[in-house]
């Protein structure tokens, strides 16, 4: 059963800001929200993690509202190299420690 819901695909252009929203209605109190990035022919790569409010690193920002039932990954000024699949993960309710990946969001950045 899918624990997260995110758009299947998105298109953007170089220099634009991209926001990918993920729904996770069953998130448990102690769960963190984690985002991974996967380029073609590579394994996924961790990019950011948060619990509430806002987290920012050199790659992206993560916005989490107070109810934590959704989160938004924000990529500032995307370039062609940001074309990838982005996965939103939360720990399954009930305590499974296995990272569970859905279909992810395929982002295509156009020139």
């Amino acid at each position, binding site marked *: 059963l899918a624990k997260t819901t995110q758009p299947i695909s998105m298109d953007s252009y170089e220099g634009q800001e991209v926001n990918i929203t993920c729904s996770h209605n069953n998130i448990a109190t102690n769960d*963190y929200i*984690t985002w991974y990035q996967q380029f073609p*022919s*590579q*394994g*996924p*790569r*961790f990019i950011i*993690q948060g619990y509430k409010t806002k987290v920012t690193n050199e790659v992206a920002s993560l916005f989490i509202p107070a109810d934590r039932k959704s989160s938004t990954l924000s990529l500032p000024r995307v370039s062609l190299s940001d074309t990838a699949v982005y*996965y939103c*993960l939360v*720990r399954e309710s009930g305590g499974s*420690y*296995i*990272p*569970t*990946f*859905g*279909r*992810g969001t395929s982002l295509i950045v156009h020139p």
Partner: protein
Amino acid sequence: GAGVSQSPSNKVTEKGKDVELRCDPISGHTALYWYRQSLGQGLEFLIYFQGNSAPDKSGLPSDRFSAERTGGSVSTLTIQRTQQEDSAVYLCASSLSRGDTEAFFGQGTRLTVV
């Protein structure tokens, strides 16, 4: 090592043959995961090892699939009597400990069954 290493990177095998895929996790990581990714699909969990505990095999699709982890380090995924539907990229990941939400992935092994 510096990262998770998988071998071989590519494997072509004939239907009915057995194959072994190897994963060397990051040194010191106690958790190890195997996933399968078919073309254009998300990652399908296969099996999870944590330290010396019994592995979680709940994701293995059939009894043709098995895995072991020796000495808490290197892991081998074995597929017996391969079928064409086994063709996929097999990904291994490790994390520092159980519940650590940051997992480090290898480059994967692309398996093609002909």
